[in-house]
């Protein structure tokens, strides 16, 4: 995996797991790959991976069970989508508006574009 340079690694690993959950690689109730395994796979400090997992746990996307380790929570998918939607609305949409303004694109243009698809 290639890490991008402007986001902390632990957040990038967080995103990676969310992506794997959305791709159904890990389904709800499934055991998630262990911190160790993921650290080895990525060649990353296990403590960094642990930090990603802690964040996932705090967000309620994964939880621990004795003897199993981390597993995917029931409504993980919805929560991830909800979080990504918020992020989309909060960061990408304002950026998008800024660019529309810059290039002089109106909402009508956008609707036309959508209808033509």
């Amino acid at each position, binding site marked *: 995996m290639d890490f991008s*340079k402007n986001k*902390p690694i632990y957040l990038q690993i967080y995103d990676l797991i969310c992506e794997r959950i959305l791709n159904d690689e890990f389904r709800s109730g499934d055991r998630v790959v262990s911190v160790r395994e993921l*650290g080895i796979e990525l*060649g990353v*400090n296990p403590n*960094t991976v642990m930090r990603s997992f802690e964040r996932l746990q705090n967000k309620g996307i994964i939880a621990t069970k004795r003897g199993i380790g981390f597993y995917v929570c029931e409504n993980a998918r919805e929560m991830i989508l909800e979080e990504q939607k918020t992020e989309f609305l909060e960061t990408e949409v304002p950026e998008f508006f800024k660019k529309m303004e810059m290039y002089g694109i109106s909402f009508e243009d956008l609707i036309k574009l959508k209808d033509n698809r």
Partner: protein
Amino acid sequence: MIKINNLDFAYKNTQVFRRISLEFQKGNIYGLLGENGVGKTTLLKLICGLQKPQHGEVTVDGFVPSERKPEFLQNVYFLPEEVITEDTTPEKFIKKTGVFYPRYDYELFNKLMKELEVDLNKKFNELSHGQKKKALLACAMSLKTDYLFLDEPTNGLDIPSKALFRKVISQYCNDETTVIISTHQVKDVENLIDPIVILDRDDVLLNASFSQITEKIFFEYGPERLDNAYYTEMLPGGYINVMRNVNNEESNINIEALFNAVMKNKETIKNLMK
């Protein structure tokens, strides 16, 4: 835990450390950085007991390293930078060495040698520099000591081996281990080392984890050079500005830029991180 308290050390007439104090906590992979000749290797030698402090204390889990007690030594392995060419095969070497280490794992040695693609029946002096280095790494890891000190471990490794090295070290680490990697090839160990220790001539400039660093320092990747930055460097597609984290934002550490920023603002950053 490794505790260094008020350490003074000098070779004949060159002072290396002057009253330095620092700690290494277990469960971490430390990156030991510093320019050539600041004493990275000497610090590792002091922790291993190969050298003795002139003043101050070094203790490792309560042991005084320079006493070189077997109980201490069997839990420590130091892989020096210079590859020593034992006139024997890695296989024979690990078999006679492993018996001293309580957690020595021959299967792991075999597995690592396979993963690193080293011929275990060739003598060390018949192997290429990179192969020797890999063979010695496999030996070091299969001893499974809690303390593992690697001096410039990626020197001489090819690109696939470097990636493999990171995986192997990540695998090595657990809650009880303390790995210290001394290097100036920061790129090779990026994402692997955390915390970072930066040494300077007779001083320690930084000893902080990534989260402690990002709390105080912000790495801005943008289109322009910022004047108030500690350090600015051109990267492909823009600039990286190392600055004070005033807005409490999280950013991704670029170790090279951090190192340069620290070297340019020694006292400022030392005080900032206090």
